[in-house]
């Protein structure tokens, strides 16, 4: 990534312009040609720098009251097998391996989604049974306190 990529990233993270030629709009702000912006955005997507290009949803997911964070404790040698199995569950949107704490031994974290909290708990029990992982803790959200999009700055400062 070079300074030109960063200038495009800076503009893109302000939001995709809502006009017929948004990439030309971005190009204009970066003093580039539209084709150059299109080419670079494609590369940023292909290389995985941009994970998803488009809309982040707001209260649609938040409106589903059955979202629940579940932390699972799995023996170290089973982490990959169980992590991959959890990843295939349709009701799970995220599955991460995380470093356990001395007083919190859980090493796999998942977000489980269902229309209601009761259905989410049922879903968690089902997953626990089918994968034979019985040591887990559910971490229901009492309140969402903050949700914002990160703002990235180029390491060399903004141009």
């Amino acid at each position: 990534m070079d300074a030109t990529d960063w200038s495009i990233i800076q503009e893109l993270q302000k939001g995709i312009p809502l006009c017929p030629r948004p990439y030309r709009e971005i190009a204009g702000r970066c003093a580039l040609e539209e084709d150059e912006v299109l080419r670079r955005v494609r590369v940023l997507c292909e290389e995985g720098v941009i994970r998803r290009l488009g809309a982040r949803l707001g209260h649609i997911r938040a409106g589903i009251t059955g979202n629940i964070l579940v932390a699972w404790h799995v023996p170290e040698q089973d982490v990959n097998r169980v992590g991959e199995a959890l990843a295939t569950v349709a009701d799970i949107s995220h599955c991460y391996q995380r470093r356990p704490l001395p007083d919190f031994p859980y090493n796999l974290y998942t977000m489980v989604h269902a229309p209601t909290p009761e259905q989410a708990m049922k879903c968690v029990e089902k997953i626990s049974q089918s994968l034979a992982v019985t040591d887990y803790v559910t971490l229901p959200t009492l309140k969402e306190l903050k949700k914002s999009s990160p703002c990235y700055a180029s390491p060399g400062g903004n141009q």
Partner: protein
Amino acid sequence: MAELCLNSLQRKLLQIIQSDFPIVSRPYQELAQQVEAREGEVIETIRQLCEQKVIRDFAPVFDYRRLGYAGTLAAVSVPAEQVDQVAAVINAYPEVTHSYLRDHRYNLWFTVIAPSEEHLRHLLTEIEAEAGCPPIQALPTQHVFKINVAFEFSQGESH
């Protein structure tokens, strides 16, 4: 309730633009062909979804690691009477992107990103000192098994 009252055009558009906003000169025209609408209608619909906060942010999701950033999930166990004050300190940091109050001894959970590992460590120490809270536990990701899958909209009208 969960999916609000979205019409068929809104659902189709949201399904596509969650991850696949076209990288072409006239992306809204291409979307218009996919959903059988007019370009202007597509732009106006997305604008309204942004205004209604159904779309929280119409901008790319970046892989923070690929941008050279460091990040972690963090948890802290805060006495009930201190929660509001500690949460206010945590949430005031722009580097903190999400935070939640959870039903567990570890009751405050947040995600944080910073331009380097060192910056991230300093930040957590700084928050701890400023909030006067018990040690903040970092739970860094060791492996991603599944991430941020697009929300599945049932197609058609719902009321």
